[in-house]
């Protein structure tokens, strides 16, 4: 291990907070707002299409969570918080999610059939999260800044979910 030795923290004007990371936070102030989605590039219809697709995909993912929970009730508690976040993702993109939708078209398709083994089912759900995150990181290259930022965050959340669904079981 070769961590740098912790430096003594000066109390003078050079003191900065790791969290506030003063320079960064201050510099960013001027970056938010400003351009509208349209003026930042991308026609409204392109933006709306991308947003609608993102919403549909999140709603579809909620359906997969529901299918796994229906097939393996023992994991319901563990998946509940993650499912709730995917619902929030769908809503952030303008989508709506019903109470519980195991009969949703997405989960009724053969590709969404749930593995009989609980661990396999979670692994598949993690793979679905990971694949969707990957698609979003590609999709965000073609949309204006604000939607790209949201897509990036949701993709990051999806990757984190995938981790919790597999290795995070402790």
């Amino acid at each position, binding site marked *: 291990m070769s961590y740098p030795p912790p430096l003594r923290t000066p109390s003078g004007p050079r003191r900065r907070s*790791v969290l506030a990371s003063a*320079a960064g936070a201050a510099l960013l102030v*001027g970056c938010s707002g400003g351009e509208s989605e349209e003026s930042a590039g991308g026609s409204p219809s392109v933006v709306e299409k991308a947003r609608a697709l993102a919403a549909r995909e999140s709603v579809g993912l909620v359906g997969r969570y529901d299918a796994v929970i229906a097939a393996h009730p023992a994991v319901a508690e563990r998946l509940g918080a993650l499912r709730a976040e995917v619902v929030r993702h769908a809503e952030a993109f303008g989508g709506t999610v019903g109470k519980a939708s195991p009969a949703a078209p997405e989960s009724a398709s053969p590709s969404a059939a749930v593995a009989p083994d609980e661990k396999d089912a979670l692994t598949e759900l993690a793979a679905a999260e990971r694949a969707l995150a990957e698609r979003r*990181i590609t999709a965000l290259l073609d949309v204006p*800044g604000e939607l*790209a930022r949201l897509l990036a965050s949701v993709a990051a959340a999806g*990757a984190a979910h995938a981790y919790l669904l597999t290795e995070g079981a*402790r």
Partner: protein
Amino acid sequence: MSREKELKALQAALAAEHAAVYGYGVVGGQIRAGRRTEARAAYDAHRARRDALTREVRDLGGTPVAAAAGYALPFPVPDSAAAVRLATELEDRVAGVYSDLVRATGGERRRMAAGALREAAVRAVRWSGESVAFPGLAERAATAPASPAPTV
């Protein structure tokens, strides 16, 4: 997106990575042996990001921001539990600047920023065990029901 905004966002990300590298130095000194490898990997990852951002800033004609002489920690870090909490905070902070960098850039830089945001979010849940609905989006964090617990 303007070059000026892009440069500002890159510099902000660089400043955050400087802070993360410093912070992980503290984490490495306090974390329990079982998680030391993980801390080391994160430390190395942030150093690599820092170096990459330094190059990006230069490519845009800017002068890369330097690390501060010292950083104030957000809370005392006397033991492994606090070190884990600090590591989580560092990743949350880094996620925030990368989400802004995604917005301010395009093309390969945007892809890089999105990848860095994803890595930070995964490391954050590795440390905390808790998911966050919108990593890096401070404006949505206030209403997050699944935000990391204050104690780990």
